[in-house]
């Protein structure tokens, strides 16, 4: 690039050279975008109108994949399972992470150690968490039910073997990783200027009032961003459902991505699987937009307040 620039420097303006340089620098992402995002999206939309396994045939079927999807019991089941998982896990982990962060922000001694203890589990991810929690949730000798026995609950749930308790089991597994969000809230708490609390003191506010009138509003931008990202991520829950339950018992843990994986990579119905992928996208998008749209009513940005 330096060479071409030098050769034609006399004739090219600085702006023209910067245009070329800019596009050269961002070229890796442009290639990524054109082929792996935009091209792939168009193609994905296209094949959702075909019946194909990419080996034996390629048959145009119009909207039938989409119609099938809307009439497929399993799709609705998967949508319910995934939504249930997301809409319990996301709020619960916000509350849990926030609680721990607030406790840690009380000038505790050895903060570094506490922080590590709570954060460490969230470093463990993917297959390893799933395998470990498969044992933790074992009804007979698992850690969880033995712990419940200690506090007097002798007949713990059957967790992954029970239609009613399998998703709650997954949710507990998700909550175990709340340490990441906790760190984020802790950083947010430490960034709240003390003069706000002093002003609240002058107004005679107690600790509870200060928490809801100062702490929570000041944290809402952090909570907002975290909730948005968590919703998108939770809708893609897959690993534990594949490894631990394979969607069972009786499809109680059939998540949208597991259904997509089965239809695409096990049944080779790529057209139908693409329709499901778009279904997943639409659902995620709708909920993300809902969060974004309602954010103005509950997210507080410092600096916008002085009217």
């Amino acid at each position: 690039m330096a060479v071409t620039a030098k050769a034609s420097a006399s004739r090219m303006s600085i702006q023209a050279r910067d245009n070329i340089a800019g596009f050269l620098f961002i070229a890796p992402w442009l290639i990524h975008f054109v082929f792996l995002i935009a091209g792939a999206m168009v193609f994905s939309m296209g094949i959702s109108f075909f019946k194909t396994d990419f080996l034996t045939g390629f048959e145009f079927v119009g909207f039938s994949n989409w119609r099938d999807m809307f009439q497929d019991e399993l799709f609705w089941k998967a949508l319910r399972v995934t939504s249930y998982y997301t809409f319990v896990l996301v709020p619960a982990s916000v509350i849990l992470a926030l609680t721990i962060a607030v406790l840690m922000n009380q000038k505790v001694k050895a903060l570094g150690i506490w922080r590590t203890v709570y954060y460490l589990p969230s470093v463990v991810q993917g297959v390893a968490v799933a395998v470990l929690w498969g044992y933790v949730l074992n009804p007979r000798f698992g850690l969880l039910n033995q712990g419940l026995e200690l506090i007097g609950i002798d007949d713990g749930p059957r967790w992954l073997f029970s239609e009613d308790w399998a998703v709650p089991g997954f949710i507990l597994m998700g909550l175990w990783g709340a340490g990441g969000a906790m760190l984020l809230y802790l950083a947010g708490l430490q960034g709240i200027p003390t003069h706000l609390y002093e002003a609240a003191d002058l107004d005679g506010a107690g600790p509870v009032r200060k928490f809801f009138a100062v702490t929570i509003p000041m944290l809402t931008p952090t909570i907002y961003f975290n909730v948005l990202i968590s919703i998108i991520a939770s809708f893609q829950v897959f690993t534990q459902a594949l490894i631990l339950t394979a969607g069972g018992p009786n499809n109680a843990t059939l998540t949208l991505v597991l259904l997509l994986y089965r239809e695409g990579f096990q049944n080779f119905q790529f057209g139908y699987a693409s329709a499901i992928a778009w279904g997943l996208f639409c659902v995620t998008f709708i909920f993300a937009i809902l969060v974004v749209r309602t954010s103005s009513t509950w997210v507080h940005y410092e600096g916008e307040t002085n009217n």
Partner: protein
Amino acid sequence: MRRIVGKTLLYIVLFTGGMIFLAPLLWMLSTSFKPEHQVYNVPIEWIPEVFDYQNYIEGWRYLDFPRFYINTTYLTVVNIFGLLLSSSLVAFGFARIRFWGREWIFLVLLSTMMLPQQVTMIPIYVFWSRLGFVNTYWPLIIPEFLTNAFNVFLLRQFFMSINLELDDAARIDGAGWLMIYARVLMPLSKPALGVLAIMAFTWNWNNFLYPLIYINETRKYTVAIGLRLFETQQSQYMAETMAMTMVALIPVLLVFYLAQARFIQGIVITGVKG
């Protein structure tokens, strides 16, 4: 008096919560050293009768875990390099060069962060399989060399915080953009690149979905899909499976131990867990 009671209560709550959070990891560690017959004893015996590392040896031999380790290490190292290189180049372009269409291209980039990867998964699979890349590492490597929106966004934020006058000064000395990138921006960005490298490490080491789809031959397995295979065949041997789960986790735990500050920084600046 109320203060002391409050403080004591606070530490009791933090301690109990901390024990609950740590318990699964400690249980895994202790189980992995137990002889198989002690594993199912109720109530749980936290200290193994004898520290039996047989589980590790047998598990390690049952599948070719050394091979999986080499494969994953290779992939992780190459991918971290690719991601840092491509992300820093692209972020530099967006942060430092004023070129035509920069603002709206960046908006497009931001909006792609909302897209679930599953939407493009099938076409990309077809694309790679047409190129004959199924059961090779190319589908796992090439995208990392083409960066992604998330990493570009993070690095751009960091680059923007570096004084623009440094670029002008370098240009007066006759430096081109590539020189400014390599000699001015990169040396100043080591902390941010470190955070990115750590996140790329955990992501690559734990990545499950893509190796699952693309890699068929056991010889080419990564640790994540190797552990999954082990679990499907050996999960009735709990101590051994726990030992292999430990083995899969050791690099992540080790890096966490060595680079705790970077880990924490990563969470704080990105707003998500890595």
